[in-house]
């Protein structure tokens, strides 16, 4: 049986503590479009490991401080 997991992130909080960094600024730092940052922040898109590391690097934190997960029931 496989557990359903939902990827969570703290990008909004990290942006706030990074002097209210805009989504556009984060997008430019990570080399993606603002739309992708919006989607990642809203949990609508799970980024590749590479992008996840780049986002963490943009904030100068470990990847685990940006991304986490929640278990959502079980799936057969």
């Amino acid at each position, binding site marked *: 049986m496989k557990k359903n997991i939902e990827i969570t992130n703290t990008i909004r909080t990290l942006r706030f503590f990074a002097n209210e960094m805009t989504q*556009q600024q984060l*997008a*430019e730092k990570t*080399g*993606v*479009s*603002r*739309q*992708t940052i919006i*989607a990642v922040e*809203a*949990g*609508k*898109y*799970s*980024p*590749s490991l590479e*992008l996840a590391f780049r986002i963490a690097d943009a904030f100068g934190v470990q990847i685990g401080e940006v991304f986490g997960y929640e278990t959502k029931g079980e799936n057969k």
Partner: protein
Amino acid sequence: MSYQEKKILTNMLSGIVVLVAYYIYAFGRYRNGLEDANDLKFWAGTMLLFIGIGVVASIIIMIIFHILYAIAIAVKQRNYDDKEINHTIEASMVEDEMDTLIGLKSSRIGFIFAGIGFVAALVSLMLGQPPFVMLNLLFFSFSIGSLAEGGFSIYYYRKGL
């Protein structure tokens, strides 16, 4: 609405215009008795012509779209200098991993539509329909597949992956 969504919508609109123009032209000639339904050379020639028109129209429309898009940004940011305007335009046109993934997922759906159309075209032949029906079913299903690809791309941009 993002740059990618606007670009896809523009492409879809040009596709719809070419498809409608094809059906008006080809079936107009057929209905007026100018062409024989079984003249496959006419149908093939017309389809090739409209595929060519579609490619050229798509290129021209994309050029116009990019010019209008740049103008719209320049008007919105008229208080900024040229460097910042160029920067905004370039930043909004970035293509990344999400665009690639959405493109792959939606093109798979487009191929499903085209595949269903191909099977429907073969079935039409089996049911004794004339070959021009099969040709038009093929043309229609590829066009619908392309539109579905665009539609699903927008859906994925909105809903997420």
